[in-house]
């Protein structure tokens, strides 16, 4: 560590000061967005990312946001740079096209150029998930077969021109989305976040000089690259492969009676200070919206690599960090989708999957720096209809969190966002105030953590009673069939399950993806997966198993079945004895 790479020409103190300021800009954008946005998914759940970009669209600084956007945010700004040459101060661009720098249609990018004295410094971009972007289904999560069916598709267009609102575009957008007043508030919040960031960039240019600032922006990316290469050099060269299957794409093909599974394969080759992730052998793109554009696939790869390589968080996330990483995937495969394949589910379901698989493959090279499979799904439920209390339309979008994988030296974490995601749940009291449902339970699922020397995190159950009027719902989840895998001999976590119990108590188990009717009085029950265990269950410390029994994370039946415990009651009694002795 003694030799310092010479990528940074600026003096060390100025570099550190400006680098910190650039990351502070991205963080401040996040504050403005969260505190002023209207829809719960943005303001409460935090499904958005903010970034500062150079004048060609490379990401210089990402806020403390979602790993899911690591790979695809730069494409969002590059798309604007490619599409327009006459970018002027006061312009604001909006777009969401997955085949033109977007990820899926609900993720709406707002991109603003930052100018000082007529010179372009770079760009600021807020990507935010809108709970609805049109299409036949409230929430825009229908199981359709092309991108046209997924909602309003926006190539990069100006929503502001020279500082004034471009009503032509605005009116067209708000005519095509549900609950337009709420969307208008979200868009305003995105623009306000960008405005704040552009002001701060201009102030930095004023202080350090435009040319210096632009040079340091490049150096910040070079710096991340150098740091990432140094970390890669520190681990052994090697190769690891992993394959897994997905539950389906939400489409039952003609002549079939079920949603068919499909396969993903990846091979990681690490050599020197670079790494290649090759998806050769993955299945062809599918009919339903489980197709990942390459930038979404890359996000999953980057998130997994960053956790394995840079757990301590020394590499600032930006475009430079990923220069040592090569992602290769066959064109037209499910991990490199081609127009006009539908994509909406893949954005999180495929990037979750790929992130977990990266750990599975890296286990062959660095088993002490990987985790078992996490929940592997964003577990989305949307509900839509009219509220009996107000007669107003509503669309609710919730994600439910399951287990975070077991680690080489500790248990997994229960019911917390993992991998590419870090959104929050919406408080039950806020949900019920906002939408005509009653959440009847929100609780941990005993025995759902994969058994192992280190136990997987528990999954959770959330249930919604539909009140007074029928609701049109959609679900999007994974790992109903493919349970989250364990690692180094650990057992899999419990799979997902979603069902509707009607007012008479009859239960119908649903497919993992697609729209369904939830009639008034019905109860929607969503069990989200636990995570895999690490190491053989036989190696579990009996005292820890006893504690798990005392807290009901593991039941006596589960202890016998999953850990071959001969006498769970004795373990429980010992745990209670310790408790009393403290």
């Amino acid at each position, binding site marked *: *560590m003694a030799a*310092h790479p010479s*990528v*940074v020409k600026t003096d*060390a*103190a100025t570099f*550190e*000061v400006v*680098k910190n300021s650039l990351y*502070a800009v991205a*963080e*401040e954008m996040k*504050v403005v967005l*969260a505190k002023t946005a*209207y*829809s719960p998914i943005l*303001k409460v759940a*935090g499904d958005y990312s903010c970034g500062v970009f150079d004048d060609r669209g490379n990401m210089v600084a990402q806020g*403390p946001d979602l790993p899911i956007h690591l790979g695809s945010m730069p494409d969002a700004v590059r798309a604007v740079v490619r599409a327009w040459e006459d970018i002027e101060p006061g312009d604001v661009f909006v777009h969401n096209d997955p085949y033109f720098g977007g990820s899926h249609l609900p993720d709406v990018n707002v991109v603003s150029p930052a100018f000082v004295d007529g010179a372009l410094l770079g760009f600021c971009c807020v990507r935010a998930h809108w709970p609805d972007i049109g299409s036949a289904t409230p929430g825009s999560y229908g199981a359709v077969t092309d991108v046209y069916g997924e909602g309003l598709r926006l190539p990069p267009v100006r929503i502001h021109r020279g500082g004034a609102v471009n009503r032509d575009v605005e009116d067209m957008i708000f005519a095509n989305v549900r609950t337009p007043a709420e969307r208008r*508030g979200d868009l*305003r919040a995105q623009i*306000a976040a960008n*405005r704040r960031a552009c002001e701060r960039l201009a102030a930095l240019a004023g202080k350090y000089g435009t040319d210096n600032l632009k040079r340091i922006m490049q150096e910040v990316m070079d*710096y991340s690259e150098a*740091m990432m290469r*140094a970390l890669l050099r520190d681990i052994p060269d090697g190769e690891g492969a992993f394959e897994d299957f997905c539950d389906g794409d939400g489409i039952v093909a003609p002549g079939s009676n079920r949603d068919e599974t499909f396969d993903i394969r990846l091979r990681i080759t690490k050599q020197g200070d670079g790494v290649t992730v090759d998806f050769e052998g993955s299945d062809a793109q599918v009919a339903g919206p489980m197709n990942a554009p390459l930038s979404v696939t890359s996000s999953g790869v980057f998130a997994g690599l960053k956790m*394995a390589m840079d*757990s301590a*968080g*020394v590499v600032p996330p930006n475009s430079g960090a990923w220069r040592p990483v090569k992602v290769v995937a066959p064109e037209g495969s499910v991990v490199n989708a081609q127009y006009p394949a539908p994509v909406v589910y893949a954005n999180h379901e495929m990037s979750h999957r790929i992130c977990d698989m990266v750990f599975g493959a890296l286990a062959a090279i660095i088993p002490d*720096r990987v985790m078992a499979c996490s929940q592997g799904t964003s577990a989305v439920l949307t509900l839509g209809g009219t509220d009996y209390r107000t007669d107003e339309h509503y669309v609710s979008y919730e994600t439910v969190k399951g287990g*975070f994988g077991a*680690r080489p030296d*500790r248990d997994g974490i*229960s*019911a*917390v*966002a*993992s991998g590419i995601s*870090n*959104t*929050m*749940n919406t*408080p*039950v*009291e*806020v949900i019920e*105030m906002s939408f005509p449902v*009653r959440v009847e*339970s*929100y*609780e*941990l699922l005993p025995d759902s953590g994969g058994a192992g020397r280190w136990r997987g*995190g528990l999954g*959770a159950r959330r*249930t919604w009673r539909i009140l007074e009027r029928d609701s049109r719902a959609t679900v999007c989840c994974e790992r109903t069939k493919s349970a989250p895998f364990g690692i180094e001999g650990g057992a899999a976590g419990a799979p997902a399950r979603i069902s509707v119990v009607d007012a008479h108590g009859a239960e119908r188990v649903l497919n993992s993806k697609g729209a369904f009717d939830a009639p008034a009085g019905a109860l929607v029950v969503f069990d989200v997966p636990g995570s895999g265990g690490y190491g053989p269950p036989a190696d579990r410390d009996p005292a820890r198993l006893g504690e798990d029994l005392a*807290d009901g*994370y593991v039941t006596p039946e589960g202890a016998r079945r999953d850990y071959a415990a001969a006498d769970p009651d004795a373990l429980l009694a010992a745990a209670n004895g310790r*408790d*009393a002795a403290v």
Partner: protein
Amino acid sequence: MGWRIGVDIGGTFTDVAVLDEESGRAGIAKVLTTPRDFGAAVIDGIGAAMGEYGIDPASVSLVSHATTIVTNALLEGKGADVALITTEGFRDVLELRRSARADLYDLFQNAPAVLVPRRRRFEVAERIDAQGEVVAPLDEAGLDTVVERIRGLDVEAVAVCLVFSFLNDAHERRVGERLRAALPGLPVFLSSEVLPEIREFERTSTTAVCAYVGPVLASYLDRLEAALAELRLPSLYVMGSNGGVFDVPEALKMPAGAVESGPAAGVIAAQRMGRQLGRANLISFDMGGTTAKASLIEDGRIETTSEYEVGGEGNVGRWLHGTGHPIRVPVIDLAEVSAGGGSIAWLDPGGALRVGPQSAGAEPGPACYGQGGTRPTVTDANVVLGYLSRTHLLGGRLPIDAAASEAAIREHVADPLGLDVAEAAAGIVRVVNNSMAEALRIVSVERGHDAREFSLAAFGGAGPVHAAALAEELGIAEVIVPPIPGGFSALGLVATDLRRDYAHTFYARIDDVDLDALNRRLAELEAAARTMLENAGLPEADRSIERSADCRYTRQAYELTVPLGEGRVTRALLEALADGFHDRHLRTYGHKNPDEAVQMVNVRVTATGRLPGVEFHADVEDGAASAGEREREVVFGERVRCPVVARGELPAGAEGRPGPFIVEEMDCTIAVPPGWRARRDERGFILMTRSA
């Protein structure tokens, strides 16, 4: 009239501030903190201060205390054994939290601690809906079973949080009655009493924190009160995180309100200083050995926030880290950064110069202390640059080894970067100043204030060295350094008022408020506030009650607190409230949406009992200090020879003394750069201004 005594427990020292109400004379005594029994240092320190200033117990009018007991119990996991009762289906609300993880990429992060383990969490069947209606009655038989199981557990407190109890507390009150009847003497905390506000996790967390720390706080305060009684001192007041003090019974009703009161004291001290000097707009800047804290005082008012976590990795910067326990009580709004005199400078593998968050602390301390420290710190950089003495600190009590500073900086920073030692030291100071400037920005510019309209109040052992540079960074024209800057925070304890906050969720669109219901709710809160003030026995003229409301646009999630005028609430008053909200939104976020409906979420009532105002001053001897050098080389951009003077040598005239020069005193050093002038007022405050 008599003396007031305030005690602030710090990591190394317990500071005791004394204030003579009549003359305003202030003083500080310091004793070593006693971590195994904090109360011992409190009593010792009070004894030392009374001895030093010749204070007779009979002349003491107020003893107030910023306790660290609550925070420590949470950080060390040493709170009470608690049982929790929730609505059926919600046993795990405390563990499920908000489901975001604290660190995005840390594979080895731990789950946040859960204050009440699952084995002691119980459900009762009952349900209130979003309109406050009972949709499932309380299952009394089931409750019996739960009460009996809790009896068998031998817990020290019980927390109760049922869904929507902030709209209708009937079930929670009933659970409370049954628990209190069946288990007499056991503290019971109901969420509808502690925090009647929306959001079940945050409400449960706040209630659980109260139950967890309540018994610990009670036993600590009991022992302390007994010891004070033996010294014939009056009964104790406790400083709250809101910056006010309240008596012990009030503290025990809401133990979470006594969190983090030490930093609050510093902000209060700055506020009082502003009042005394006629500066309504101040940014307080308190820099010690490991952290720097900034807070904003506008128009003489402190800002509080309800977004706070305790017992985790702190509230550094703009976001909660998700590692601690949220408590929704008003806490003085501070931005804190890991930057202090002891912060260590290092080069990361990418070649960037970093400062902190690791600190050399008191042991081994900076390299120049000669106590075994070999890594370069901010203090070492200040020694190399001549801001601090190259021979001694603390009035000669702490010898300084400047060669050790130079060696540490050369080895770890200068040589690897190919710089000379002074350039490297200047780099360290720039980096640490930038991170502190960020804290100042967070509380000012980011909240919509123009920093140039504020003065900077600089204190803490390390603050006044860096203050002028930070002021330049933010365009601030005046820096004020109080007397005894190193112990100034503790003065906030003796200069504050009685203050207690009451809040209740009142969920309605402003254009659709049930005025009678709102006025009833406010009347209840105001009655509670009046009772507190009456119990405190303050004259009517010194009592005041202020009202405010947390508002947002109907569909937003975060509220801004806006003052609500006096008297019975009318439509006109609500319109004024909405206007106030639009303006505040514009100022804070850069836009407002006046066509949209404004939602009221919580109403708040703050009761203040003003203690007699005091103008404080400290003894400053005119003329030069006895020991120390009279001149040294200091790097202000370039190396210049500067005079070194004592506070007493500064002129009182408006002209002041032009920089560059250094002011050295017992517990602090002040750097006055070129382009600045400094003078002293008659009470010992130093006022530094930038020349036009």
